[in-house]
């Protein structure tokens, strides 16, 4: 069998600064058509020391070559768990670049921005319907930003009730952003143990009237549905708390179940996950937040509303937590997500969730006999194995690096923390049976290599331009800039 990964010609490339040649230019500006002005000398710097001097050709080749050292969803299978690396539709890139959308200044008067405002309004409405919440703000720039906005709203609500409370409960399966966001709202984090899924009993045991909120992820980071969610929400509510849901895993649920219908009070969406916007090598994303009616007054300003004279930005919201950022959100990302929703429709989104869950369960079924599966509940959109049964002294990291040689982006590794040596696989619905089969065969082959020839894993990757990098050296002696 030929593997997907092989080796071929790749070009080396220096740092841009190492190419620089004094006097070379990569830009053009029209001649200045007004008198040139000078500022008082004490305000003026020298030319920017160290700045590169390159031609356009240099720049194009530089970044073209750099790009070939990367691996994206368009390169191949990218089962990075929790990140929903689904295919990013190309038409969405096209519409986001329409001059009337990409060229619209955020300070343009509202009556001259009706297209942009309408798009935002329609997207809010669609997200509310998908999630079962009453209101949605599009302002947060990413999931963690949405968490912060949501938790601030929870705190503001408690403040409005007269007692902000002091604690937030967070299960041990949670993503690191959850506790970090709670802290930013001045809350103490109380980690609670789950056994794969959270039991209502455990929540009840931790719940008291100092608990402002429970932060859950549903389905959780093990890919399991929090089956007691309704009961859990009731318990929290009964003690005057609210329930925050990390919506990173909404890709399992579209059209199937709505967090807003489960008793959850606030949830952020990751548009760059569930709604197919590109991950950009680490963003930009967008993290809209849906809330129940009681929390709507606390949403960040401005809010996009629809009125008699068209769509408007509404600023006068006295209970609002305020602004999370400048302007209105990562509009360019919102455009893509809206395009995705309009392309898929209700049935298409549901089908996407179904196929995402089918794919994860298929991978699980094919690998379960070989890789250790710590939690046996029915998986939804992702499945988490451990490296317990990997032979030859090989660990998850070795498996991951060996997968690179086979031509795959590795799964998320060592998360969630509750699984030792976690291997978190989220195939998403855009992968075909053919791709999954080839990937599973690679996984099985690697398990065999670990047994028969573990050095192949320890030495991996060997097909890449560079081999395993010394991360310890990087942290011990940080070199964070050129010449620095």
């Amino acid at each position: 069998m030929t593997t997907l990964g092989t080796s071929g010609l790749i070009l080396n490339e220096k740092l841009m600064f190492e190419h620089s040649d004094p006097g070379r230019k990569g830009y053009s500006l029209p001649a200045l058509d007004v008198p040139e002005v000078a500022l008082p000398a004490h305000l003026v710097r020298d030319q920017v020391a160290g700045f590169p001097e390159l031609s356009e050709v240099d720049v194009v080749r530089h970044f073209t070559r750099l790009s070939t050292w990367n691996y994206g969803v368009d390169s191949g299978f990218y089962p990075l768990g929790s990140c929903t690396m689904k295919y990013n539709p190309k038409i969405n890139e096209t519409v986001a670049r329409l001059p009337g959308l990409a060229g619209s200044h955020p300070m343009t008067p509202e009556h001259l921005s009706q297209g942009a405002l309408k798009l935002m309004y329609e997207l809010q409405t669609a997200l509310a319907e998908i999630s079962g919440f009453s209101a949605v703000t599009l302002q947060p720039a990413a999931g963690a930003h949405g968490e912060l906005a949501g938790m601030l709203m929870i705190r503001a609500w408690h403040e409005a009730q007269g007692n902000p409370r002091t604690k937030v409960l967070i299960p041990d399966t949670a993503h690191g952003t959850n506790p970090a966001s709670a802290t930013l709202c001045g809350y103490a984090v109380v980690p609670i143990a789950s056994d794969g899924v959270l039991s209502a009993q455990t929540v009840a045991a931790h719940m008291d009237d100092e608990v402002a909120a429970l932060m859950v992820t549903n389905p959780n980071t093990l890919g399991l549905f929090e089956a007691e969610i309704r009961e859990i929400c009731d318990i929290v509510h009964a003690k005057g708390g609210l329930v925050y849901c990390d919506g990173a895993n909404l890709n399992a649920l579209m059209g199937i179940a709505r967090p807003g219908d489960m008793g959850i009070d606030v949830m952020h969406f990751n548009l760059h996950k569930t709604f197919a916007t590109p991950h950009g090598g680490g963003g930009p994303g967008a993290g809209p937040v849906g809330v129940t009616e009681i929390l709507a007054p606390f949403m960040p300003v401005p809010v996009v509303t629809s009125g008699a004279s068209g769509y408007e930005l509404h600023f006068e919201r006295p209970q609002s937590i305020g602004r999370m950022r400048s302007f209105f959100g990562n509009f360019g990302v919102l455009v893509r997500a809206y395009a995705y929703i309009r392309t898929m429709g209700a049935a298409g989104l549901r089908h996407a969730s179904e196929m995402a869950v089918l794919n994860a369960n298929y991978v699980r079924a094919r690998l379960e006999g070989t890789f250790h599966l710590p939690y046996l509940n029915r998986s939804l959109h992702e499945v988490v194995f451990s490296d317990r049964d990997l032979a030859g002294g090989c660990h998850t990291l070795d498996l991951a690096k060996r997968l690179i040689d086979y031509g795959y982006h590795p799964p998320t590794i060592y998360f969630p923390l509750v699984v030792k040596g976690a291997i978190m696989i989220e195939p998403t619905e855009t992968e075909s049976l053919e791709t999954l089969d080839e990937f599973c065969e690679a996984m099985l082959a690697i398990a065999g290599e670990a047994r028969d020839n573990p050095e192949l894993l320890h030495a991996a990757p060997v097909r890449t331009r560079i081999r395993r990098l010394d991360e310890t050296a990087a942290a011990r002696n940080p070199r964070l800039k050129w010449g620095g």
Partner: protein
Amino acid sequence: MRYIPHTEEDIRQMLDVIGVDAVDDLFTGIPADVRLQRPMNLAPALAEGDLLREFKQLARQNATADSHLSFLGGGAYNHFIPAVIDQLVSRSEFYTAYTPYQPEISQGTLQAIFEYQTLICQLTGMDVANASMYDGASACAEAVLMTARATRRKKVLISAALHPEYRETVATYCRYLDIELVTIPFDANGCTDLSALEDVLDKDVAAMISGYPNFFGVIEDLAAQAPLVHRCGARLVAAVAEPIALGLLKSPGELGVDIVAGEGQSFGIPLAFGGPYLGFFAARQQDLRSMPGRLVGATHDKEGRRGFVLTLSTREQHIRREKATSNICSNEGLCALMATIYLSLMGKAGIREVAVQNLSKAEYARRAIAALDGFSLPFAGPVFNEFVVEASESVEAVLARLEQQDILGGIPLGRYFEGMANRFLVCVTEQNSKAEIDVLVAALAGGGQ
């Protein structure tokens, strides 16, 4: 559905391997009482061609610099974007990848971030820069939090001339963290009032936050602020909403600033109705371990070849959880790449030349408007590419008149500052030709008569 490859036969085969009869059987873990019992109520699915038509229709309903002469700034700037940028960031290896967790297949992203960090340090005069924050306002808020962490103090001074949306964002972030925010007024130059600053500064102050240039376009005297701030052991934070200015103005580093938080949209990133933009964040070595966000460092592989990795991640949420320096995870990677490409194209000469053009064009417009009856310049301080104009009538009337001539003449300041109902902020960039400026001036004059 063209994005979902499953045929009926594939599904059948997969269900067999899984050992269930139907797709629905995969969802048995979801209790019936939380399941949605109806189809979602969404607009019908659109074919690609219809989608394109619909979005063109939306796009047509927005005014842009193609349809109007635009003099809007205020934290988002209409600079020329070289075609190279979009064509390079459209390489799918860049835009369809995620955070470079696996360095061996992410060296493109990692080297580019390393270069970005370098460029930001060079431009700001700082020692270290992170891989990006969400935008200028949130970067500024993170800077405030960092100074509180680093100094263990709880009072932060903010210039009243800072971009108001930055100020509001800082307030949101500080809301429940017991950080006291004190506003320092501006003076007749449109600059932070130094004596007011001096009055408020004491040993409880963690930081002073100034715009550079500030919201009125005025170039703050950071050199004067720095010693005052440092005398109390506080940090001086410069918030740069228009970083093209750094091609010409003394770098914050030279002026004694400790932290620079800013908005990188000017560096080749589309206006896009306000986002996605690019928060840049740079600091002195002393604050390295308190910094929020990702950092890329140089290292080497087993065979001694240079490579790059995410580093110092013990500051971050995925390791430190509630003790992290920030909750940020996804940042604005692709926008940082755009800025990196922009700056590599502009280079040493270009960043200077474009800055000089902005300065000169704004000055040309400023003088011409100042010479008009019915308009005056309320602030005397030196400006970069924006300035405040005071009209003798209501700003709304002035701007509405300009709109009739397809001119977006500026941003009314009344919504941000009490007593500024007659003032507006005009921005002029290298994109505005002299002829366009003359049209603006004539339109203002025409209405004034």
